[in-house]
């Protein structure tokens, strides 16, 4: 088995021009981001647009979105393992790898947001002092770490079985799979609670927040999966059954329906009752006291989500590649805005003393964030590149052929 892994690892560095160009592009982005991050370390977070009034920004927005992406793997796990839906079971491995990548990116986004990143060990078990169970930050860190471990184990197990050419033995990993489902729900719920538990921020202090997080995660994650799966199908020998894609699209439609419903409920409650707690939502959608930098973005996001909902709701539309891809892209963009900047920034606007500070990330923040996305893309590409020849049985076949010749 190890020899199969070694052979696969050897292939990771080999590829066509497009592959190398992609690698060079990602590495360039990462290099640029590192240079910006070194500058941020040297000068402090003053290089970002965050200030005391809006003390979390683009980094935490990306973090929040990515927790959603990570949680979405279970939307593949459930039909794959619990309902034995074969087309999805064949590709669930890639979903788990997306989850792994997303969790690592989450950790990176937290790291770049810290004022004293070298002291991160203060929040580690044994070495540091964890404020458990009081701080949701610790809960979230533990939940994400556990989720990472579960997915790494699932992927390793799958690869091992594939490398040795054996079928999955469900009895072995079933407990892990069963565990992964509530765990995925919990990472997202806990991330929502991280914001939700702050009575100082009425925008987040709404009990609908966690369900909204889950609903939007179950749209954005699978939508990203749709795009990634098609890319894998295009650039590798992996077969992805259209049935799997259509099933995912169908699930997205339901999740988006719930997402829109929950958003509507939130909008109704705030705007009809019209208490002072409506201010952040008003700022986000309509502007407050003449300021509302996020308005065009949130309306765009809302429109994207609604259009995508309609596309994915109608089977004849979602089964046409053009519309399928359009819908997937719209959802990823829509949720990225809604749950990223659209969720984090209005929590701080107006701030607790009524001040409006219009936060917009600096170039430096943008580049560092892009660098983390590039790191994620690089990691995922390498993982897929490593996995595909094992997954397709190519390596095993070649070895068998070799043995046969001898």
């Amino acid at each position, binding site marked *: 088995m190890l020899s199969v892994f070694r052979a696969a690892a050897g292939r990771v560095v080999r590829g066509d021009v497009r592959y190398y160009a992609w690698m060079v592009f990602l590495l360039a982005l990462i290099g640029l981001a590192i240079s910006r991050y*070194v500058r941020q370390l*040297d000068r402090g977070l*003053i290089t970002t647009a965050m200030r005391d009034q809006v003390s*979390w920004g683009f980094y935490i927005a990306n973090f929040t979105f990515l927790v959603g992406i990570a949680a979405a793997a279970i939307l593949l796990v459930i039909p794959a393992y619990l309902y034995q839906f074969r087309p999805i079971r064949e590709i669930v491995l890639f979903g788990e790898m997306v989850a792994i990548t997303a969790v690592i990116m989450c950790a990176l986004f937290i790291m770049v947001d810290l*004022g004293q990143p070298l002291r991160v060990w203060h929040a580690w078990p044994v070495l540091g002092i964890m404020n458990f169970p009081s701080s949701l930050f610790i809960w979230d860190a533990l939940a994400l770490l556990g989720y990472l471990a579960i997915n790494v184990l699932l992927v390793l197990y799958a690869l091992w079985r594939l490398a040795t050419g054996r079928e999955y033995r469900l009895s072995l990993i079933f407990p892990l799979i069963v565990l992964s489902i509530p765990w995925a729900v919990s990472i997202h719920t806990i991330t929502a609670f991280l914001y939700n538990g702050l*009575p100082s921020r009425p925008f987040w202090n709404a009990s609908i927040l966690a369900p909204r997080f889950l609903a939007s995660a179950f749209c954005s994650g699978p939508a990203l999966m749709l795009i990634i799966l098609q890319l894998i199908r295009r650039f590798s020998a992996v077969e992805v059954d259209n049935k799997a894609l259509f099933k995912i699209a169908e699930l997205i439609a339901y999740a988006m329906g719930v997402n829109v419903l929950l958003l509507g409920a939130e909008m109704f409650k705030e705007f009809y009752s019209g208490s002072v707690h409506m201010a952040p939502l008003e700022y986000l959608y309509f502007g407050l006291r003449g300021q509302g930098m996020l308005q065009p973005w949130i309306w765009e996001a809302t429109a994207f989500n609604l259009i995508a909902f309609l596309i994915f709701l109608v089977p004849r539309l979602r089964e046409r590649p053009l519309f399928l891809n359009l819908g997937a892209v719209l959802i990823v963009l829509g949720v990225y805005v809604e749950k990223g900047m659209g969720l984090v920034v209005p929590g701080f606007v107006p701030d607790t*003393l*009524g001040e409006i500070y219009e936060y917009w990330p600096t170039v430096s923040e943008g580049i560092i964030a892009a660098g983390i996305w590039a790191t994620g893309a690089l990691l995922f590409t390498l993982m897929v590149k490593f996995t595909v020849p094992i997954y397709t049985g190519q390596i095993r076949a070649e070895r068998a052929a070799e043995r046969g010749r001898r």
Partner: protein
Amino acid sequence: MDDTPSESGRPATVSRRAFTKGLALGLGATALPTGPAAALDWTAFFQKHFREMSEEEIRRTVERLEREARHRWRKDIRISTTRAMPGVVFGAGVDLSRCIGCRRCVYACVEENNQSRNPQVHWITVLRFRKGEKWSDLANAEKYYEPGRVPEEGFFYLPVQCQLCDNSPCVRVCPTRATWKEPDGIVVVDYNWCIGCRYCMAACPFGARRFNWAEPTIPVDEVNPDTHYLGNRPRPKGVVEKCTLCIHRVRAGRYPACVEACPVGARKFGNLLDPGSEIRYLIEHKRVFRLKEDLNTEPKFYYFFSA
């Protein structure tokens, strides 16, 4: 862009060198002191949480911090670790009928507590409200008012700082217990333990917590050398700080700087456990209220209208 005022006494910037030498060095240069103090780097890195240190460890840590401070500010800075007095829980008050919004307290606090001048850090914010308009939700607060004279006709003022919550949301959310409530009710931060995640800032309902977005700068001759470990000692960048009621003063029996700076005597201060204290008199004789009482954070900062 590296035009940090030279008065700061800040060690030479490392950006270009760090850029070339890569991420690891950059990380090191950021969190650890450079130059002659470099030998102390690892002791600084492995410094324990203040409340986990033995008396001996505290003594050695304070010695090292004083050495570092002397190196950085070219001035002898004394860092005290005076503990809370038994039988004392501090409370504060502001008479909104008297406050004229002159911001004397804001700047007295900055000077007393070694807040960064650039980028500017203020622990106290004075809000202005138009009389007769909705104000208790603070939504119509004006923070940047700049008239020639105060008080202005038709307005009133409300200074906000740490509200001394008994049930502090900031303490609850801190992932590393770097901020906590002392026995005398003062919520403090261990600047050497804070990781700079700013969760406490999101949690604070009063905007009382401030972050060092860049290396703090203070003109050397304005550095207050009388400091406390949990209060006004010089801070590094990337950590959160806040009003500590002038912990170095009040634990020595003195009034906080803001109380003494107020030209109209609107600020009140005392021991809530002492029935004869000013603060107890205030609570018993005036109709007091606290900000955002609906959040149940139980502040010990009392506002009242004496007239």
